[in-house]
């Protein structure tokens, strides 16, 4: 997977988030403050523009630029959290011009650690970690099983989607939904839902 692949990934994310903007906002309206779709749309559109202007030379440089742009443009909790996730991935890639599924798996672990450190959330708190953590595990398992890149990305995307769905019966302990207490039960977490979209886009980028 080279720089072009990761640029395609960001393209896919921007398109998916734009298409699902209202859905993400509806999820957020139920247990948050109805701005998640608009914020991510603004952020990934800005990231795509930043990439067009800068043409970063490596996958690492590309993802660090995406992360920094998200931190600078999105605001809220999702700006710093998504921004950190992309920056940690980029830093894990170093200077490499091409990365393997094993390296992508290590980078996703780094992203997860960064998000957990910053937000303080654990699995089961009804946050983006509930989609990111199972995806990172599924990708690591796929690499151990020696699956091809496309199959490995499939497994990660499926795990993220299942993780997001599994937030529905949970009571939120972090983020704005936590203010609702037991009333947060019965709704999918918007951050987990958007994380599933972001990782689903990885699979779409691979099949381009």
């Amino acid at each position, binding site marked *: 997977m080279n720089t072009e692949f990761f640029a395609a990934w960001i393209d896919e994310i921007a398109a998916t988030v734009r298409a699902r903007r209202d859905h993400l906002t509806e999820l957020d309206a139920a247990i948050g*403050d*109805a701005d998640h779709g608009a914020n991510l749309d603004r952020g990934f559109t800005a990231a795509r523009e930043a990439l067009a202007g800068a043409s970063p030379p490596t996958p690492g440089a590309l993802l660090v630029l995406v992360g920094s742009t998200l931190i600078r443009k999105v605001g809220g909790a999702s700006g710093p959290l998504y921004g950190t996730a992309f920056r940690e991935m980029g830093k894990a890639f170093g200077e490499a011009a091409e990365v393997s599924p094993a390296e992508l798996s290590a980078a996703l672990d780094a992203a997860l650690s960064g998000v957990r450190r910053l937000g303080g959330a654990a699995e089961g708190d009804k946050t983006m970690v509930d989609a990111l953590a199972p995806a990172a595990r599924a990708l690591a398992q796929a690499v151990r099983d020696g699956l091809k890149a496309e199959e490995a990305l499939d497994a990660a995307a499926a795990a993220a989607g299942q993780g997001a769905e599994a937030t529905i019966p949970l009571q939120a302990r972090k983020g704005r939904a936590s203010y609702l207490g037991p009333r947060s039960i019965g709704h999918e977490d918007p951050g987990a839902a958007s994380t599933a979209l972001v990782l689903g886009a990885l699979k779409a980028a691979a099949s381009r």
Partner: protein
Amino acid sequence: MKKLINDADSIVTDALRGIAAAHPSLRVDLAGRVVFRADAPTPGKVGLVSGGGSGHEPLHAGFVGYGMLDAACPGEVFTSPVPDQIIEAAKGVDGGAGVLQIVKNYTGDVLNFEMAAELAGDEGVEVATVLVDDDVAVRDSLFTAGRRGTGATLFVEKIAGALAETGAPLAEVARAAREVNERSRSFGVALTPCTVPAAGKPTFELSDAEIELGVGIHGEPGRTRAPMREAREIVRTAMDAIHADLPLSGETLVMVNGMGGTPLIELYIVFAEVEAYLREKGATAVRSLVGNYVTSLDMQGFSVTTCSLTGELTRLWDAPVETPALRWGR
């Protein structure tokens, strides 16, 4: 949705243009999205910076001016500002005595202000941060995001602002700000949801016979839904929650705050009930504020915030202030 907007995507910029045009005492950086006092920085004075999502007007830009904030950073509607804005604000108000950030306790605000403080520190600005978390509707625990910051933000900004104006050092201003937060409690009630312009429809549905108890200031549902009742009964529920958390006694500063869509006449009806409740508990409302100060767009409803005063806090509350939304004594 009917709103006085040009475009849902440009409402913050369009409103900032209005603020700049209406208030020559302010300097508005439209591109950087920071509202400064026109004469910032004040040499030798601790600079006060606050900010948060838009939609809570007059908080925070309406409280920039003598005796209160030096700068405010408005984010998108209900979305915290980004670190770039906060760094620009901190650098612009640092008069050599450091900068105090007043931050409402929400994950997004805390993260963005933390990042900004670190980066501003790298550039040589001394930054201290005070978190406001006064909302008793949220159960606090080590495992959650903690309580929300709501009405007490205004008290913290006013009192810390007055102290900073005397030339007090950063640590002293931060201490007073924390003390105000610790002595303050709030509870909010919604009669209707609000409509976020970018979403285009109300954040939740509520029948004419129902209210939401324990709401924050972001159009989110509250802790529980209850039947609509007389103002007297609703106020009792709100005040019981505050009194159970921090027993009311002595001289008290009280704000009855409208959520944006509530007629003032109703807020005064609420205040009368709040005042009677305080007397019943042996407390006295010696200072008061009634009006729309920490709003939630077009939501109907109110919040009540109390602060148990000391001699020092009363003097600082009474000190002169001159901002677009709060002014006296000067």
